[in-house]
């Protein structure tokens, strides 16, 4: 297996997860997603507890069924959460994504596939994160250099020794 496939989810997940309130309208949710240029958000109830997720696909489905742009987030979200452990590998994440035909996983200690969640996730990992990292994979310094602080220290070391 390539080094890239063995990287940990924790190393490339997005830590700030964008959320919406369950009372927000479909139009407002679309505004949030376009504004942040993201393909999915988590839905929180009044007590800030996650109750669902809305992806582009949920919106396509809602529009297909003739939903009004004032429909509530609660009515169009899916309530299944797909989760993954922060220490799982990219390959594990890709497998869950492929098998369930989904594009993002919520990162939770102990997460491994479909499950319930009761608090804000540690992060989110989407196909975009994986592809961005794959684009960089060729240019990445080897693991021993990354452990000592990543690209910068590798470069510093290189400059010092040449």
């Amino acid at each position, binding site marked *: *297996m*390539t080094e*890239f*496939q063995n990287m940990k989810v924790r190393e490339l997940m997005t830590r700030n997860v964008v959320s919406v309130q369950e009372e927000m309208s*479909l*139009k407002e949710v*679309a*505004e949030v*997603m*376009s*504004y942040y*240029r993201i*393909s999915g958000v988590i839905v929180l109830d009044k007590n800030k507890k996650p109750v669902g997720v809305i992806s*582009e*696909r949920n*919106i*396509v*489905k809602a*529009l*297909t069924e003739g939903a009004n*742009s004032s429909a509530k987030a609660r009515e169009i979200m899916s309530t299944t959460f797909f989760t993954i452990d922060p220490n799982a590998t*990219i*390959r594990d994440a*890709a*497998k869950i*994504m*492929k*098998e369930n*035909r989904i*594009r993002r996983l919520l990162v939770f200690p102990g997460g491994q596939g479909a499950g319930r969640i009761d608090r804000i996730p540690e992060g989110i990992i989407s*196909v*975009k994160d*994986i*592809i*961005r990292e*794959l*684009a960089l*994979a*060729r240019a990445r310094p080897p693991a021993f250099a990354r452990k000592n602080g990543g690209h910068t220290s590798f470069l510093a070391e290189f400059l010092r020794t040449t």
Partner: protein
Amino acid sequence: MKVKDIMTKGVVTVNKDFSIYEVAEVIARYGISGVAVIGEEGSLDGTISERDIIRAIAEKEDISKLCAGDIMMPCAITVSPEMDIKEVLELMWKENVHRLFVCVDEKITPARVGARYRQRPVGIIAASDLVRQLSRG
């Protein structure tokens, strides 16, 4: 509303011999979710979406030698610029895809064979285009 009103004009393309890293770089750099794989004569040979790359990472032991031709989907679901958005939504939902290539039929006349038609990609309509359209009201 029609496809041509909200589609992204122009298609980002790669050749079959691009490596998986180069394909990922093209997708990441342009901030898009898929590319067209173009063959000789500029016709649409296949498509690579983010999902196809994820599938390769999940299934293959070693992805470092893969190229665009290995991971592409040989057929693409295409729509015409004149199609109604409602049909597009249904197609996306039914086929479980996030983007459709907008193609026009183009007549080509190779020297001896006589007239043939090929599908020339002119744009892409993605789920994110529909979300953006909705946010504008």
